[in-house]
């Protein structure tokens, strides 16, 4: 699944996702990706976030909305992402999932839930300092 946030020079935030979902899903099953506030969320007054992972579980917590609202209340992007993950972890300790967050000044961060075989989460960033895609990894 790809979740993407783009923030323009003027602070305009847009978010989008695209996925083909879970493998061997029951026909008709839709994951978190297309649900605003779950797969992704954008609010030019606060920032944007996008989630990836086990959508059946993550959608119940609206992690992208939560992360954006935490940034609205002053949280740094990484902290906002971490809180969104920990909210889910409380009920589903070994869920598979990660969130990326960005605020309207161009700050960004990510967080993920550590589980066997998943201890780092890769994400791409481009901004005027890099001018080309740079791979980042966050330790879960």
């Amino acid at each position, binding site marked *: 699944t790809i979740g993407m946030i783009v923030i323009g020079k003027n602070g305009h935030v847009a978010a989008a996702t695209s*996925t083909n979902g879970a493998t061997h899903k029951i026909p008709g099953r839709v994951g978190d990706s297309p649900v605003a506030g779950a797969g992704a969320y954008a609010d030019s007054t606060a920032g944007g976030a996008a989630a990836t992972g086990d959508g059946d579980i993550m959608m119940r917590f609206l992690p992208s909305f939560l992360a954006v609202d935490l940034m609205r209340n002053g949280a740094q992007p990484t902290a906002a992402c971490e809180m969104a993950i920990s909210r889910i972890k409380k009920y589903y300790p070994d869920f598979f999932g990660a969130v990326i967050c960005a605020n309207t000044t161009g700050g960004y961060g990510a967080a993920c839930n550590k589980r066997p075989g998943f201890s780092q989460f890769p994400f791409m960033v481009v901004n005027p300092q890099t001018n080309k895609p740079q791979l980042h990894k966050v330790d879960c």
Partner: protein
Amino acid sequence: QASLPLVINTWHFENAASAAWSSLQMGGSVLDAVERGCAQCELEQCDGSVGFGGSPDERGESTLDAMIMNGNTMEVGAVGDLRRVKNAVGVARAVMEYTEHTFIVGESATIFAQNMGFKSEDLSANQSIAIFSKWLQSNCQPNYRKHVFPDPSKSCGPYKPNAKSRQPKHPKGNFDPSSHD
């Protein structure tokens, strides 16, 4: 670290990030850029979890979910369980731009997409067919069924509810991380 404009996306999908950044550099809006970036992954079938030919359902069919959101106006367009149309994020944008709705799903989303000029085509590919046939040969394991019979941890369906059977759900541990949203 903080500077604008900014593109950030999940996973190591470098070409998607490039496509979004180029769109911005060419004067595109942030909505254009985010759509372009996700569409790049649909074209490239990024790690098999985006676009056609991946993640077949219990019938072997690939179905697509996508959304797009405008943080200035809070407009959202989304599709779920989209069938036979490859450019899911494009259809999501069409929902946002040509309807008052937010979310259109299933077969009707496909008909909406066709009416909006999107091409209808088979979303299966060698990969999804191979994944599906391997799954059938392994008694439909893993699957997302529980409290049904026959025992979903041992056999394929069709399944019927089985209120009596309380066999433990598949241990989550066998969750396949490549099968994600």
